[in-house]
């Protein structure tokens, strides 16, 4: 292919011509492609491909050195799963061209500084790891790497910095040791011991307030939910005890040892970690997700525990693969399945985690290559669910994981579906201690997954949930799953797919409840007007005509002789809205049309806060069996500004909705409402920024063009004036929106505090255990508000602390707030 360009023109004149007219851009693209694709499936060995590529690049250095430098820096930053392939390549290049090696190291250091400044901490991590592996490739001298590590660890001595800052630097050191620990220990064991001691001291005094908020399960058994730094440190300690013998990482440079050890090494320039700045956003701490047990199989495979460093490396690589390929589910699934590539796991040391439910089945022992197969399935489940359940948020959009698992099921139909079923079963069994937020995600995933497989599931396996109270996690979970399944299908389908014993958990038929349905209700106040309004709407009466009809509705809130005028009239709202929604009940589109057509009337009727609250109550009354419809109507009412976000929050927390408080759809509505509020603020802020930028550009241009005719200046002055006015207006808008946003959170938190305090006080005076299923649900929902909207809430911490989360609060409630603060301390 491209090698022909570098041959000695043995094709004669033609190739000479081609070489001369070949665009540099084409060559650069080809270089990029060559470098990016090395290490992929190939008929030749990896070693020979690397050797060949090193030759090609060395020849191209005179003309394309900068491009090659940039490409190599980019792959170091963006392709961590191929780290050792590229470090080997750099090693070979350094052996052939010492200067290039030096320039590459310098470029990497520059890049590291830039990524840290830009808050790209994950990429910075990959760069540090890359530099470490360059020690193994004889590009960087070990002592200078140790010196960099020492500078990193010295961050733990800094005062008045967030803990998450020193956390990152310690993590950078520890997470690189699987690659380079052995080499560094051989060359500088005294320094390395000292380093690890310092780290040990830091980890011991470090605060772990944040951990409970990030755990998927609240129980320690059977799978301890370890804090990520503690887990990694335990893995490194074990590695050290094993004399730094790491068996999983593919190390192509070993094959080139004779060449590489002839190379001259470079010293890393002294690297001072950039100082802490207020706008630095360090990564949040994590809790390691474990879902399968460490058990010994009766024959053969050794199961390394959760503290084996191979576990860290494998899971890290799988997470990196997802990070690189999440947008393309087929490639992502293929890449996951072809990991670890040509490096077969040695049969006498299996990195396999086997579900205990599988262990003693006949199927397991009959499987060909069962260890390899189960390595894939079980570890995938762990990695993928680990991401899906990650708190505060999954790294990628939830639906991606559903689709990825479906692709994996297609590619491994003999094992993944079964392991997935077992994983689901396992999580069902442990629902009692699972964080509510994770239960939400689990039921979303499960119902969507089932809808792709004809809703086939062994429901009878879960018959135990029928004996439990409806408010317990297991029956609640099944009920919510069935409701979600119904949304993706229809009511009768759900009736058909579950055994008759489950009929109590089947969702209600989503029908409309019309108060003024028939003659039997004619005694109800407003009945006559309801009929009249219905007819008026059907006859396409105008808004004025309808309002006239509505005038006849008595106001239960007013005295007969009260002439204060049109105050809030709940009956009027009820009569109109019930009738309107009844006529429009056929579909979402019909209802949306109705709301749009009679927007004027609705706005008039709900001018005050009580009106807004009442409209929401009516929507619920008529559609209480169709939560999905309630959600979309509330969404439309907010978007058309008939109700505001605070009204929705107040409604959901009101006593009339207390019986629905633990239902999933209530929280869907609340979080959707908060998101709308946030997006609204962001939108106006963006408009403001754009207007400011425009003004700046205009003024900048004026400066450049100064000296033009007077006319031009006058026009631009007008333009400036207009823009300034616009900016002022937008500024006001932003402030008003932010005020509304702050108020929304205050309302929500206040309500939570009231509800929880009431419950705790009642339990205390009654001497009952406060830890009921309702309480667990409620306190975790409070956590969820903090976690899901942490970016926005950070702005209002001062107000929250002064007004709401004060020391007088019950410590159970205050603890949630303190854990939240600890996430960014």
């Amino acid at each position, binding site marked *: 292919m491209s090698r022909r360009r570098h041959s000695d023109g043995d094709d004669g004149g033609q190739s000479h011509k081609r070489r001369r007219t070949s665009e540099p851009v084409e060559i650069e*693209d080809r270089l*990029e*492609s060559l470098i*990016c694709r090395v290490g992929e499936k190939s008929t030749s060995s990896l070693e020979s491909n690397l050797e060949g590529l090193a030759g090609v690049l060395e020849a191209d250095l005179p003309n394309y050195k900068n491009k090659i430098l*940039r*490409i190599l*820096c*980019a*792959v170091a*930053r*963006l*392709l961590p799963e191929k780290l050792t392939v590229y470090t080997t390549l750099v090693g070979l290049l350094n052996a052939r061209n010492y200067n290039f090696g030096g320039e590459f190291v310098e470029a990497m250091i520059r*890049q590291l500084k*830039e*990524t840290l400044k*830009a808050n790209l901490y994950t990429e910075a991590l990959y760069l540090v790891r890359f530099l470490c592996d360059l020690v193994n490739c004889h590009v960087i001298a070990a002592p200078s790497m140790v010196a960099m590590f020492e500078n990193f660890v010295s961050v733990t001595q800094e005062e008045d910095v967030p803990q998450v800052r020193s956390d990152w630097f310690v993590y950078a050191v520890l997470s690189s040791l699987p690659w380079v620990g052995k080499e560094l220990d051989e060359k500088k064991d005294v320094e390395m011991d000292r380093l690890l001691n310092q780290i040990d001291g830091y980890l011991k005094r470090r605060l772990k307030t944040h951990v409970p908020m990030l755990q998927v399960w609240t129980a320690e058994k059977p799978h301890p939910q370890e804090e990520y730094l503690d887990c990694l440190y335990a893995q490194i300690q074990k590695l050290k005890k094993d004399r730094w013998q790491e068996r999983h990482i593919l190390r192509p440079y070993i094959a080139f040892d004779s060449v590489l050890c002839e190379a001259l090494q470079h010293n890393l320039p002294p690297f001072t970690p950039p100082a802490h700045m207020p706008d630095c956003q360090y990564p949040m701490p994590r809790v390691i997700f474990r879902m399968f047990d460490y058990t010994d199989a009766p024959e053969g495979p050794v199961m390394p525990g959760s503290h084996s460093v191979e576990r860290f490396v494998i899971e890290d690589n799988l997470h990196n693969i997802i990070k*690189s390929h999440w*947008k*393309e*589910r087929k490639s992502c699934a293929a890449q996951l399945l072809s990991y670890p590539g040509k490096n077969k796991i040695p049969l006498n040391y299996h990195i396999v985690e086997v579900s205990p439910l599988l262990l003693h089945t006949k199927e397991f022992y009959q499987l060909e290559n069962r260890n390899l197969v189960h390595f894939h399935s079980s570890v995938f489940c762990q990695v993928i669910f680990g991401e899906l359940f990650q708190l505060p948020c999954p790294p990628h*959009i*939830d*639906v*991606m994981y*559903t*689709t990825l698992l*479906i692709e994996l099921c297609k590619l491994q139909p003999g094992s993944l579906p079964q392991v997935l079923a077992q994983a689901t079963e396992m999580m069902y069994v442990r629902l009692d201690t699972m964080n509510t937020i994770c239960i939400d995600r689990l039921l*979303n995933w499960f119902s*969507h997954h089932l*809808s*792709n497989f*004809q809703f086939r599931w062994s429901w009878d396996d879960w018959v135990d949930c029928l004996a439990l109270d409806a408010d317990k996690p297991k029956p609640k979970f099944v009920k919510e799953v069935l409701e*979600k399944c119904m*949304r*993706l*299908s*229809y009511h009768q389908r759900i009736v058909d797919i579950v055994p008759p014993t489950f009929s109590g958990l089947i969702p209600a038929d989503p029908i409309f409840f019309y108060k003024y349905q028939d003659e039997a209700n004619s005694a109800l106040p407003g009945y006559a007007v309801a009929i009249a309004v219905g007819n008026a709407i059907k006859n396409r009466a105008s808004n004025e005509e309808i309002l006239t009809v509505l005038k006849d509705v008595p106001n239960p809130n007013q005295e007969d002789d009260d002439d204060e005028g049109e105050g809030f009239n709940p009956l009027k709202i009820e009569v109109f809205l019930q009738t309107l929604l009844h006529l429009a009940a056929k*579909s*979402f*589109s019909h209802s*949306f049309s109705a709301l749009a057509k009679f927007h004027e009337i609705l706005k008039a009727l709900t001018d005050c806060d009580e009106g807004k609250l009442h409209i929401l109550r009516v929507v619920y009354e008529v559609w209480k069996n169709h939560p*999905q*419809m309630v959600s*979309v109507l509330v*969404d439309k009412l907010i978007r058309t500004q008939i109700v505001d976000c605070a009204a929705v929050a107040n409604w959901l927390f009101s006593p009339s909705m207390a019986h629905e408080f633990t239902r999933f759809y209530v929280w869907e509505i609340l979080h*959707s409402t908060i*998101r709308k509020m946030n997006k609204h603020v962001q939108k106006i802020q963006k408009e403001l920024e754009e207007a400011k930028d425009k003004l700046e550009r205009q003024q900048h241009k004026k400066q450049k063009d100064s000296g033009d005719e007077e006319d031009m200046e006058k026009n631009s002055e007008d333009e400036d004036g207009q823009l300034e006015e616009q900016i002022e207006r937008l500024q006001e808008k932003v402030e008003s929106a932010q005020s509304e946003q702050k108020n929304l959170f205050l309302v929500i938190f206040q309500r939570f505090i009231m509800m929880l305090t009431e419950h705790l006080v009642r339990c205390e005076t009654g001497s009952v255990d406060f830890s009921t299923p309702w309480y667990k649900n409620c306190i975790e929902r409070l956590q969820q508000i903090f976690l899901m909207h942490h970016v926005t809430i950070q702005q209002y911490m001062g107000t929250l602390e002064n007004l709401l989360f004060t020391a007088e609060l019950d410590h159970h409630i205050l603890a949630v707030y303190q854990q939240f603060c600890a996430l960014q301390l």
Partner: protein
Amino acid sequence: MSIKLNALFSDSYVDVSQYRDQHFKGNRYEQEKLLKQANTLYVGNLSFYTTEEQVYELFSKSGDVKRIIIGLDKVKKTACGFCFVEYYTRTDAENAMRFVNGTRLDDRIIRTDWDAGFKEGRQYGRGKSGGQVRDEYRQDYDPARGGYGKDSIGWQVIGIVAFKGNF
């Protein structure tokens, strides 16, 4: 830091397909421009019985849905197996192309594609009989899409004659 390695990180699920709306008012260039900015998706291979609610639920998984327009048989004014889904943002639509396209709704693999934007009249099937063109000549029996294709009988007869002719 400027290199993004475009060669490697493709996003092919989001690419515009080969389909172009023959009734589009404007030239090819304009249509492509709109497709590349669109927030609207065409969704095909739906069952005639799939409801707006089901589409809402599924497509909400990639973001807030602005509106859904169910495709109708021009004559019968009943659902004829396609719809448009419009999002508030392009990002949400892209995620639908990546993660909803090619998965099942009502047990059928549905297909999504970029759409230049809904205009009144585009909610109707363009087949001779009122439904979608693909249902005019479809040879297989699909109970969720009205059974046999509208004109498949005609094609079957032609097939038999041709077959006999071969003897």
